[in-house]
Structure formats: structure tokens, C-alpha cells
């Protein structure tokens, strides 16, 4: 029947419009975030002449790198319809262990650091286990895990984290490679890998499938259990790594290192166009979200207003971003330009 001219004609007309409508929805929202960042950066010049400079971009990228790494994991978890509230605690875990087990110039770092990440991974696995087998809602399981991990850390350090940052971590955050700050290059590499994993690997595909409809994915023969565990482990490992970066950046660990990143990590993902219900969103969007938030932070702090007003402005801009990046908006646009 498909070779019937009439239906062919209809297929083309309908089909193609629908496809492009979709494509634009995803990519446009990613671009939109990027554009928003640039606009903010340039707009910043009006606040202070030395803003909008390359050096500010550098600062943004360095400070943003933590959030990007954290929201990569958060993004994967959200992609499967979950939520990871244990990120801050695990990041702290990573930082504390790195300083306690490894320390400054420890030759054993090459196998100790992987062990640190492994430990973090285990926490992620425990959360996943609770969610998959005990059927605890992700929100609660990860919340409980974070309470537990924090209290264990408190006990373990008796309140005073010791030790110094491993050289590798310091090099990663402070080093220079061919004239560029190492963290910036690292960020580029990480984004590339993250994108490959989420959008170009079979694992990414599975995660999208599960986030869309677990039951259908199971029936289709996807390795559902494994793929429901994976994001939490990855998320925990990347959180641990973020902890390592933080330690390298400020050459020392504190027990509240990760705290300030929880809500931003979620915000970055959502602003980046992902659905909190799972199944939709891209890592590039998330990166955009993270950079957007960091840029905002640097600019806000330069505004000479009292903290309260600054906070209001920050919230307002987040809101505006959300409104601008609404899915419907792009579908409307998508249909307008034809």
C-alpha cells in the first residue's frame, strides 16, 4: 500500500515536517542555552568593563567544571526517571578519601585514586540496589544515602578532615597545558566523552529506552536491571571525581565541600532541556545549563547590590531561562518557520 501515490504524497508532506519539528526542539534548546550564555557574558560588560573578557570566560569554565561533572551523573539518573540527592555527600566522600588515603605526593596514588572512585561507585551501587530491589523511590533512597554517608564521614574524620590534595588533582586543576589552563582542556575532553556516552553509545540508548518506559524496554529485551543500576554508579563515580577536582582546586577537603552543588546540579539538567520524568534531554544541553548558571554566578557577584537583591535577580533569571527554553515554544517556532 505504501507505493500508492496518494499516501506516498501524504507521508512525505506529514513525515518530513514532523521530523524537522522534533530535531529543532532538541537542538534548538541546546543552542538557545549556549546563546543565552554568550548574551549574558557580553551583557556583563555593562556591569564591569573587565567582565566579558577571556579571563572571565576562563574563570567561568574552571568554576563551571565541577558543576558540569556533577550534572553529568545527575543527568543520567534523571534520564532514567530518577533523582540523585546523594551527589554532594559522595563528592565530599571522594575529596575526603583522596586527602586521607592518598595525600600530597604519594607514589601509590596511581592505584589509590581509582580505589577512591571505586568506593564512591559502591555508594552509588547501594543506592541503586535499594531502588531496584527494595523498590525505594530514588528521591528517598539517595536522600537517605546522603544522610548516612555524611554522618559516616563526620565520624570517620571526627570533624577535622586531614591530609593534603594529591599532586595529580592539583595538576589537573592548576596546571597549564599549551598555554591553556588544564581544567579547561579537561572540561572539553569530559564533555566530549559524556556526549559520546549519552548520545552515541548503546548504553546511552538503553538509558533513554528505560527512561521512556521501563516495561516496554524490558519486553524489548533491554538489560533493564543492569541499566537501572548503571546511572547511579556512574553518577557516584563522577561525583567522587568532582570531589577530587574540588580538592585539587582548593588543595584540601572540608566536610561540606559538595553541599552547594545539589540544587544547581538539578537546575543545570532541567534548564538544559531534560524532562525530570526521564527519557528526554541531552548532555550538551546540560553542559549549557551548568555553564549558564556559573556565568550567572560570576556576573551576579559583580553587581554591587545587597545579597538579598542579588538572590532575587538570580532566581528571576533562572525563571526567565526556564520560560524561554520551554519545549512548546520551540515546537511553535518549529511550525512557524514553514
Amino acid at each position, binding site marked *: 500500500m505504501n507505493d500508492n501515490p496518494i499516501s506516498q504524497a501524504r507521508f512525505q508532506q506529514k513525515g518530513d515536517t514532523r521530523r524537522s519539528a522534533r530535531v529543532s526542539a532538541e537542538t534548538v534548546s541546546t543552542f538557545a542555552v549556549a546563546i543565552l550564555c554568550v548574551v549574558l557574558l557580553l551583557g556583563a560588560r555593562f556591569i564591569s568593563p573587565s567582565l566579558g573578557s577571556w579571563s572571565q570566560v576562563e574563570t567561568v569554565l574552571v568554576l563551571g567544571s565541577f558543576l558540569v561533572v556533577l550534572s553529568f551523573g545527575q543527568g543520567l539518573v534523571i534520564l532514567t526517571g530518577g533523582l540523585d540527592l546523594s551527589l554532594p555527600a559522595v563528592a565530599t566522600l571522594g575529596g575526603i578519601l583522596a586527602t586521607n588515603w592518598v595525600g600530597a605526593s604519594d607514589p601509590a596514588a596511581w592505584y589509590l585514586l581509582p580505589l577512591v572512585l571505586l568506593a564512591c561507585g559502591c555508594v552509588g551501587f547501594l543506592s541503586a540496589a535499594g531502588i531496584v530491589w527494595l523498590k525505594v523511590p530514588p528521591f528517598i533512597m539517595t536522600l537517605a544515602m546522603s544522610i548516612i554517608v555524611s554522618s559516616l564521614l563526620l565520624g570517620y574524620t571526627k570533624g577535622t578532615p586531614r591530609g593534603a590534595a594529591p599532586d595529580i588533582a592539583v595538576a589537573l586543576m592548576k596546571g597549564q597545558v599549551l598555554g591553556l589552563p588544564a581544567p579547561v582542556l579537561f572540561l572539553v575532553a569530559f564533555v566530549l566523552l559524556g556526549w559520546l556516552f549519552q548520545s552515541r553509545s548503546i548504553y546511552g540508548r538503553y538509558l533513554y529506552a528505560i527512561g521512556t518506559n521501563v516495561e516496554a524496554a524490558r519486553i524489548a529485551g533491554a538489560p533493564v536491571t543492569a541499566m537501572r543500576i548503571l546511572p547511579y554508579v556512574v553518577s557516584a563515580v563522577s561525583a567522587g571525581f568532582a570531589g577530587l577536582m574540588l580538592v585539587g582546586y582548593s588543595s584540601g577537603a572540608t566536610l561540606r565541600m559538595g553541599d552547594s552543588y545539589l540544587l544547581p546540579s538539578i537546575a543545570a539538567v532541567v*534548564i538544559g532541556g531534560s524532562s525530570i520524568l526521564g527519557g528526554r534531554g541531552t548532555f550538551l544541553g546540560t553542559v549549557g545549563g551548568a555553564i549558564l548558571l556559573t556565568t550567572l554566578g560570576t556576573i551576579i557577584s559583580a553587581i554591587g547590590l545587597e545579597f538579598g537583591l542579588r538572590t532575587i535577580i538570580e532566581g528571576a533569571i533562572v525563571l526567565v531561562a526556564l520560560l524561554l527554553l520551554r519545549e512548546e515554544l520551540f515546537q511553535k517556532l518549529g511550525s512557524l518557520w514553514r
Partner: protein
Amino acid sequence: MSDIATAGASGSAPSAVRSGSAPRHRLWRLTQGAGLILGLYVLLYALYAYQQPRALDSYAIAALMNNTAPLALAAAGQTLVVLSRGFDLSIAGVISLTNVVLAVYPLEGPGGALLSLLVCLAIGGAVGAVNGWLVAYLRLQSIAATLATMIICQGIALVILNAPGGAVSDWIADELTGRLWGVVPVSGLVVAVVIGLWLLVRRTDYGIALYAIGADEPAAALSGVNVRRTRFLTFVAAGMLYGLAGLMLSAQTATGNPNSGTPLLLLSFAAVALGGTSLSGGRGGLFASVMGAATLTLLQKVLFSSGVSSFYTGLFQGVVLIVAVVFSGLLTRIGERK
């Protein structure tokens, strides 16, 4: 309590089942309702009373109630939003905001108290309306929209009061934390009234609609339910409850603190989950969440009197949270199994 009342208190759209399967029926109510959490609470209280004989004199009870009321009311509001399949982060902002307003503009005497009450409800209602508008009409994801409004409210709170201070009117501070005829704790009464209202609301068309949109929005819409209005009203009602929580918090601390709401944010979700309300909407109830909140505050007492090393209290809280949720989930599933 009558059939309906329990069903009401317990939440889940009441579903009596043919007398044939009466046992299942009872189990169903138990699991769907506050039965489990109620049991846990009684158990903990017994333990507490055993360790701490003073626990039973009316002062201790009142003190505990005063301590519970703010979280209980906050959780009550959160429950409404969760039932409609949403998350509300603005809870932290609204409570801080009402608290600083009460501390900076204290209104003396019973009349002033009444006015203050209205102010709190107004503030909460207004923020709720904004959330409702953003989520129900502009279709923003609730977690994102309320994150933004939360930040903004925090900002406003800081503008009104940039450091702890101010004094809540004596009448509020004393009467709302006192006891009627030296026995009945007022804070307890306030919570009781809210539960009473809920029992009624549960039996209105709005109540049914709330559960309907939480479980299956498209179906509810095609069944003629006005989804947007229901969702909007839900956020408004929730906001008002946060306002009330703010009032009770102010009564207890008698002073203003621009960050006072923050600690209640995640706790409110923990309480909701402890009460067995499903975070994916459509199942659970307000009363159960109130009990969940009460359990969380009681837990502090029990852990204190059982002399757990303060480093590790978090460990216990986390574990209790998981165990309780696993249990209620288990029972629910048994209840649903044919």
C-alpha cells in the same frame, strides 16, 4: 472513625471491595493509610517514654508538639503537591519569608495574631499561585519552577531581614506554643484542625480530582476533570500550609531568621515518604505525612536518650527512613496483589 473517614485520612481514593475479600480490605486500608506510620510512631514513643519517664508529662508532650508542628504542616502542604504528581521546593522560601515578616512586623495581641495568620496565608497563597500559574498554565516542570520561586523568596526574605533578629509578637510566641487548660497543646490543635479540613476536602470533587490528575492526567482530562485548575488550586493550598508552618515556626523560635525555612526542605519530602505517599503521585495522604513528620522529630529524642554517638545519628536516621519506606511499600504491594 467511619469507613470514609479512615479512607479519607489515609488518602488513597477509597476503594472498598466486596465483602467477599474483607481481610484484604482491612490490609488495604492499613497499608494505604497511616496505619503503618502510626504504629511506628507509637512504638518509638513507647521506647522514648521508657527511656525518659518525663516524656509523658504534659509539658514534654507540648514541647514535642511545638517542635513537630512546623515540619508537620510543611509536609502536609508538600503532600498535596506530591499527590498531584509534582515537587514543591518553594516550601523553604515561603517559610523563611513568613518568618521574617512576622519578626520584622510583629502585630501584638490576639487581633494582631489573627491578622498575622491572614498575612501568612496570603503570602503562602500568593507564592503558591505563582507556582500554580507556572506549572499548570505555562507547563514548567514543577521542580524547576519552584526552585526558581524558592530562590526568589529567599532573596526577598534576606532583603526584609539580612541577619537573624526581630521579635515575633509575644501573643503568638506564647499562646501558640502554650497549652489550653494546662493540658491541650495549641500547636497540636492547629495541626488537628488542618487534618480535619483535609478529611473534608478529601470528600469534595476537588479531592477526587487531585488523586485523579496525580495518577493519570490525560485520562482525568478526558474524563472532564479541569486539570489546570486542580493543579493551580493544589499549589495555592500547599502554599498556604507552608505559610501556616512559617507561623508555627515563628511562634516557637519567637524570632526571625532569613534562612529558617531551609532545613525543612528535604525533611518535608522525607516525612511525606515516611507516610507512605507515593512520590509518583495519586497515592497516599496528608495525615500519614503529618505522622511521618512527627516520627522524624520524635526520632531525634529517641536517639538522644538512647545515647547514640552524635556523629552517627545521621546513620540511624537514614536507615530508619529506608526501612520504613521499604515496609510501607511492601505492605502496599501485598495490599494491591490479587
